[in-house]
């Protein structure tokens, strides 16, 4: 038993304990807080699995932005004990559910323990054309060169989810701004934190996007940090969300996917098929797409947390 193994076993116990707490907690607010800590521990687990890009994404999006979203939700929903309804479960049904979950877990554990010795892998296949893509980080090459279609579709999916959130506004509220429902005081400790952290956060975002070509990093992590800085500015009261009808907002939102799409269509002319990058320009195109996508993605993620436009007197 090496030290690494003991560390990972301890981490696994902590993760499972926190997950049990999230499921079993009585009040929703401690469950959400437990979930945020769970996300941070899982990002350490990703480092144990030698995946620094995924660890960064999990910490930024899974722990940070999802945590902010769920905290806002639990604050808006308020105290559940004020509402009367509670589900009463029959004893037999409860036991059946527990047996089902144990069966699912046991089946998956059996699969994990019976995986073949020589794992089939695409690592060597991915490494071969790496030089022709111009980037040195194989995960970035996968995301933006080999499977660029997946990334394009994913960006559009996030945009559609945001439009879906916007569509939940009442017709009369359409021109209003998304609001958290409380008026933050200006100044105060959050104002100080925002004025200190936001420049640092913007610098981190630029660094992540730039270094993502050759080292772990990339636009998702950078965009998540930028979105988190925006949310910090919102709760500190130093910025406010633009109204959804704002034209500049909409232009920035579609800037990223449009650049991606246009670059992909130009691949027909330069290298023969959609989303093909000619080897001489490959790194330049990839960096251009990443730089264009970062502000759009950051806005989308921030607007997903801010929610639909609402009348600010509602909570």
């Amino acid at each position, binding site marked *: 038993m090496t030290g690494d193994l003991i560390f990972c076993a301890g981490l696994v116990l902590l993760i499972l304990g926190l997950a049990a707490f999230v499921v079993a907690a009585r009040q929703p607010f401690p469950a959400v807080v437990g979930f945020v800590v769970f996300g941070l521990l899982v990002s350490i687990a990703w480092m144990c699995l030698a995946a620094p890009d995924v660890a960064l994404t999990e910490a930024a999006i899974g722990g940070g932005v999802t945590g902010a979203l769920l905290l806002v939700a639990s604050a808006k929903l308020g105290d559940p004990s004020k509402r009367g309804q509670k589900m009463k479960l029959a004893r037999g049904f409860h036991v059946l559910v527990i047996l089902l979950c144990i069966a699912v877990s046991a089946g998956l554990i059996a699969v994990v323990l019976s995986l073949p010795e020589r794992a089939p892998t695409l690592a060597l296949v991915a490494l071969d054309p790496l030089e022709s893509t111009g980037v040195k980080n194989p995960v970035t090459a996968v995301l933006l060169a080999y499977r660029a279609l997946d990334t394009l579709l994913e960006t559009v999916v996030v945009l559609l989810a945001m439009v879906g959130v916007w569509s939940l506004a009442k017709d009369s509220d359409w021109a209003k701004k998304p609001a958290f429902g409380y008026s933050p005081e200006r100044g105060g*400790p*959050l104002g*100080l*934190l925002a004025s*200190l*952290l936001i420049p*640092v956060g913007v610098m981190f975002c630029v660094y992540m996007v730039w270094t993502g070509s050759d080292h772990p990093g990339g636009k998702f992590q950078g965009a998540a940090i930028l979105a988190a800085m925006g949310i910090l500015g919102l709760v500190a009261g130093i910025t406010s969300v633009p109204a959804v009808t704002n034209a500049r907002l909409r232009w920035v939102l579609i800037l990223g996917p449009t650049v991606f799409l246009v670059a992909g269509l130009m691949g027909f002319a330069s290298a023969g098929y959609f989303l093909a990058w000619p080897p001489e320009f490959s790194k330049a195109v990839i960096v251009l797409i990443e730089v264009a996508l970062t502000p759009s993605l950051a806005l989308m993620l921030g607007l997903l947390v801010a929610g639909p436009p609402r009348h600010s007197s509602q909570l």
Partner: protein
Amino acid sequence: MSGLWDLLTILFVSMGVFFFVAGTVGLLRFPDSLTRLHALTKADNLGLGLIVLGLLPRVESPQDALKLLLVWALVLVASANSSQLIARKVRREES
């Protein structure tokens, strides 16, 4: 010579762990929110600072050392802020 650096690392990291354990015990055993915040600040600032100091001899380049110190500085700022906010909320709810 490298044995001396290793000894320093073990010493500082152990002291940092001690402060973290003390902070956790305080979190669990102190009677109310304000005293618990007091215990947590010891863990955050002092414990993390000692661990970072202990890890400094093991870095590969000066930039990594600067990154570690930046991590500590950011945690200091964030924990000072959140302690202040929690304490204000507790004080407001009491009055």
